[in-house]
């Protein structure tokens, strides 16, 4: 039974339509991923941007003797519940430091309670009706407004949402990453140099290679178990400290740096090595003076990407105890500290609405740092990349 040309060309059209359908479907999949990114960033921005603003109200502060004992008495009764208790608590101390304040009455802009803050941002929660009316009146008089929240960047964690900031977590992240870099970078580069330039092709080398690829794929939480059982329980490194967190993250970052460095070393052409050997360099001199400098941009790029990965990591740090309430910046590498992702995790567990905003604000800061780190890596690669 033969088919007519019409039937054949109809069949052909059907088959080509299938191709088109596949094309659109696959394009849709990519679009879905992009759409998610847009929704995700939009959602985070919408939730997090208000965190960079904080309500302040102008109130009369009476610096009298009663206020030194009972700070609440320093402000009038109608605005008393609207002022941040964290601010009021500081009044007696300030009066001790500046005795000339005693007996004066000043109009001051003070930090408002987080309920006022949320009210001004349009979330009508937490304020009683009478208080809301007071806030409305203050706002109409220009005595209540949203200002840039500098405290978010200069203060540590607090149980009071209006006082909570990321300073201690940011410092903790910096210290932890310093430890990570100091440990992972030299060891990673040395391992890669050994494997690429020195190692004989034997069983041990193969074992090391398989092992490194494996380490890269081990769930991060298991590194936390290692940190807990070996670093803390055996070696006695202080729990919750940037030291133990940094060491744990270093072991996680090691495979990333090794793999990136090996790629960079491999991209240096052999002719360079041959030339250096030809003029009588030893193997180590070839590597030190010629191969490593040429591979350096690639090594830096890989290390930055590895560090960015370590910076966003939370699970192993929870296991080694870096999720704690840390109101102050840690003074040394062996003191309890927390890191940005862990701070985000802690805040995410707080039930108050104001903390949702704080959490998203912290996330925005973290994402901004991560994106700039990765962008630096890309720029570095683009600037120094050499095609041989």
């Amino acid at each position, binding site marked *: 039974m033969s088919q007519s040309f019409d039937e054949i060309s109809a069949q052909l059209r059907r*088959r*080509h339509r*299938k*191709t*088109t359908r596949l*094309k659109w479907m*696959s*394009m849709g*999949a*990519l679009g*879905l*991923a*992009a759409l*998610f*990114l847009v929704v*995700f960033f939009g959602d985070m921005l919408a*939730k997090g941007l208000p965190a960079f603003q904080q309500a302040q109200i102008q109130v009369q502060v009476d610096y009298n003797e009663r206020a030194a004992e009972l700070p609440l008495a320093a402000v009038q009764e109608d605005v008393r519940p609207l002022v941040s208790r964290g601010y009021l608590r500081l009044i007696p101390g300030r009066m001790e430091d500046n005795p000339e304040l005693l007996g004066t009455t000043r109009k001051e802009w003070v930090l408002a309670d987080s309920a006022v803050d949320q009210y001004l941002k349009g979330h009508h929660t937490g304020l009683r009706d009478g208080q809301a009316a007071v806030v409305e009146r203050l706002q109409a008089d220009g005595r209540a407004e949203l200002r840039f929240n500098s405290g978010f960047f200069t203060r540590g964690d607090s149980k009071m949402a209006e006082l909570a900031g990321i300073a201690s977590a940011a410092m903790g992240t910096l210290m932890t990453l310093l430890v990570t870099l100091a440990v992972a970078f*030299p*060891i990673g580069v*040395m*391992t890669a140099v*050994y*494997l690429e330039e*020195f190692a004989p092709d034997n069983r041990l080398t193969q*074992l*090391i290679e398989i*092992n490194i690829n*494996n*380490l890269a*794929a*081990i*769930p*991060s*939480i*298991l*590194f936390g*178990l*290692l940190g807990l*059982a*070996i670093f803390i*329980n*055996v070696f006695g490194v202080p729990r919750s400290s940037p030291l133990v967190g940094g060491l744990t993250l270093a072991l996680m970052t090691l495979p990333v740096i090794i793999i990136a460095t090996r790629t960079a070393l491999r991209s240096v052409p052999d002719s360079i090595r041959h030339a250096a050997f030809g003029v009588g360099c030893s193997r*180590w001199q070839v590597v030190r003076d010629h191969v490593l400098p040429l591979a350096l941009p690639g090594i830096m790029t890989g290390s930055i990407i590895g560090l960015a990965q370590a910076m*966003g*990591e*939370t*699970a192993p740090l*929870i296991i080694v105890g870096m*999720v704690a309430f840390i109101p102050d910046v840690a003074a040394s590498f062996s003191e309890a500290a927390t890191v940005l*992702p*862990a701070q*985000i*995790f802690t805040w*995410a567990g707080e039930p108050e609405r104001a903390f949702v905003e704080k*959490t*998203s604000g912290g*996330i925005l800061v973290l994402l901004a740092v*991560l*994106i700039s780190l990765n962008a630096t890596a*890309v720029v570095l690669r683009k600037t120094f990349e050499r095609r041989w």
Partner: protein
Amino acid sequence: MPTNQLFALFCGTLLVLGLIAYLAGRYKAVRVRASGTAMHAQPDQYAWFSVLSTAGPAIAVGALGGIAMLLLGAEIPTPYLLAASLGVGGVGLFAGLRRVRPDFHARKALESVVHGCLAGAALISIFTTFGILISIVGEAIRFFQMQSFWDFITGTTWNPGASFLEAAGRAEEGASAAQFGSIPLFAGTFMITAIAMLVAIPVGLLAAIYMAEFAPARVRTLAKPVLEVLAGIPTVVYGFFAAISVAPILVDVAGLFGLDASFNNALAPGLVMGIMIIPFISSLSDDVINAVPDSMRQGSLALGLTRGETIRDVVLPAALPGIISAALLAMSRAMGETMIVVMAAGMRPNLTANPLEDMTTVTVRIVASLTGDQEFASAETLSAFALGLVLFVVTLSLNLVSVIMIRRFREKYRINNL
């Protein structure tokens, strides 16, 4: 004297010793060479050798002593230890200077030390793996001495509640004995992993097909980084997004259909995890599809197959080992993922097939049992290591199978850069 100052003094003295070694070694070598004798190495190399023979033994003695104190519990007073290591450094200084002779290969000696250091660094990754293995297996064995292995593998109730009473020697007070049946946890892990894979495999694979087969070069260079961003977002952020934004929407949507969903349902973390994993699948699949030789496409098109048929019947079957390998890698990533499930999934071990109910996972329980205020030796804390051991074994075998698959693909098409 406080330890910190003592340590600073030690480092300072060692630095001075090293400087002396460098200058003296160099001076001696320069003088020998000035006298007209041919030497095997440069003065600098002799100098560095002297430094090494001074600092190396000193640091080694200090480190050995430190390890002996930490690991074996030996009681060595810190001042004595540091003094001893400085003494060894002084001896090393003299030994090193004595060897600054024309017939000594200082460069070779230096380089063999460098070689040793590099090899030592390479061994650290092996130590890490063994460290993970030893720490997890050791504590897991302690757990299985307290609880039966069989109950752990086959039990369907996870109720560690009473274990802290047992650890405190007050077992009778607990209303019921602690039970460590891990099946509900693994059921939860597999459920959430399955949801994640249902999202990630189709989307990731289709995205890879588009990028490898259809997309113009400009779209390709744009789309790759966009997908990489997905992999770069910290998991704690995904967890927050799943718990705060996705879960309430799912509850509302389920309500529209008259279904009762928990706010800690398994669907929200599963979906978000699936999105997180898309780049793992798409980038490896993209590489694999690109690596399929063009001659196969040309042959297929020459036979009259359309592009779609070429992709479906020729390219994808050829790339299948690589795609499976990508999927397995992604699966092991999903099973070990912690933060998303800690924040968005439930805490209640729940054996159910309904993804709208709350259920918990292995990683959630590991975190929960290690962040409680329990003493370390309690069965609940140790159970984290038993769960970790199972997680380690499962992810390791997934990774190994994945490596074998990709190697098979590579050998079949003789591709070197995968």
